[in-house]
């Protein structure tokens, strides 16, 4: 590599691009991976607890995780049946 190549290649540093892309995708996939692992179980167990008090269907509980900067928000949405609310 010659004197001039040395500066040219540092201008188009593809390794730096690769590193940046990998850091983004790896952070994304790590986050998702961990949640995929316990969310279904959490949802099932929550359903069991709620059913001790209210009769709800599987679809009446929605669970979601949102990443917001440094922290994550666990969003839990339970739709109660009409009759139960009226009582």
């Amino acid at each position: 590599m010659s004197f001039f190549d040395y500066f040219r290649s540092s201008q188009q540093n593809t390794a730096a691009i690769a590193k940046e892309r990998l850091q983004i995708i790896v952070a994304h996939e790590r986050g998702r991976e961990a949640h995929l692992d316990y969310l279904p179980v959490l949802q099932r167990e929550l359903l069991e607890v709620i059913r001790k008090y209210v009769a709800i269907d599987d679809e009446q509980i929605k669970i979601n995780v949102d990443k917001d900067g440094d922290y994550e928000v666990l969003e839990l949405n339970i739709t109660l049946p009409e009759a139960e609310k009226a009582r």
Partner: protein
Amino acid sequence: MSKIIAVTSGKGGVGKTTTSAAFATGLALRGYKTVVIDFDVGLRNLDLIMGCERRVVYDFVNVINGEGNLNQALIKDKRVESLYILPASQTRDKDALSQEGVEQVLAELRDRFDYIICDSPAGIEHGAIMAMYYADEAIIVTNPEVSSVRDSDRVIGLLSSKTARAIEGKAPIKEHLLITRYLPKRVNQGDMLSAADVQDILAIPLLGVIPESSVVLQSSNAGTPVSLESNTDAGQAYLDIVSRFLGEDCPMRFVNDKKGLLSRLFGN
């Protein structure tokens, strides 16, 4: 205490089998009773790399199925004392490696060996999971290249969720990063991820770096594990890795371009 070490990567063709053979041979050279197992059912290759392909009679699946016992299936290396190979089956389907079968064979090997090296198949399917399932430690083999690094990250996720240690809530598998097919010159030119970059992304301890080397092809041609070529770059790099694994202080080599800054600035 015997240790089970999985050699894994996700991506194929990155150097798992080369590493399994060289690492197992290196441990045996240090006097440890070592066995290296080929988990790549249907695509057996470790026997070729170890140079014992003509001595295979019974294999891993035969032992699991009770068609032969371990003593019949284990091949004793002719060069290094206390080194054994357990070949994969070439014909059976991948599901032949039942979890109970693998557990039983590994338990038997634990009684007889100090180190049990599991050469994983590519992918994240059954065979790869079986190779890592009972591991105490894992060597994650990675090339300094985007798809290999991403796949390694997937595998690191599996090690901490789909293995016996993870499921039973025991101490996690000890992970070691091994970067291979490394070209310091291209790293210096800025068109290959550096060892530090890869370690930054994967965030597990670096065990060592193996340079891209013509020796690897030559030794595979001859059926000689690279670590027996002790006066070559790749051979020494693998022996260094064994030293570091055994807790010895051994500075990193083969990471930097041999040429000094001056020769880099003023042409080849």
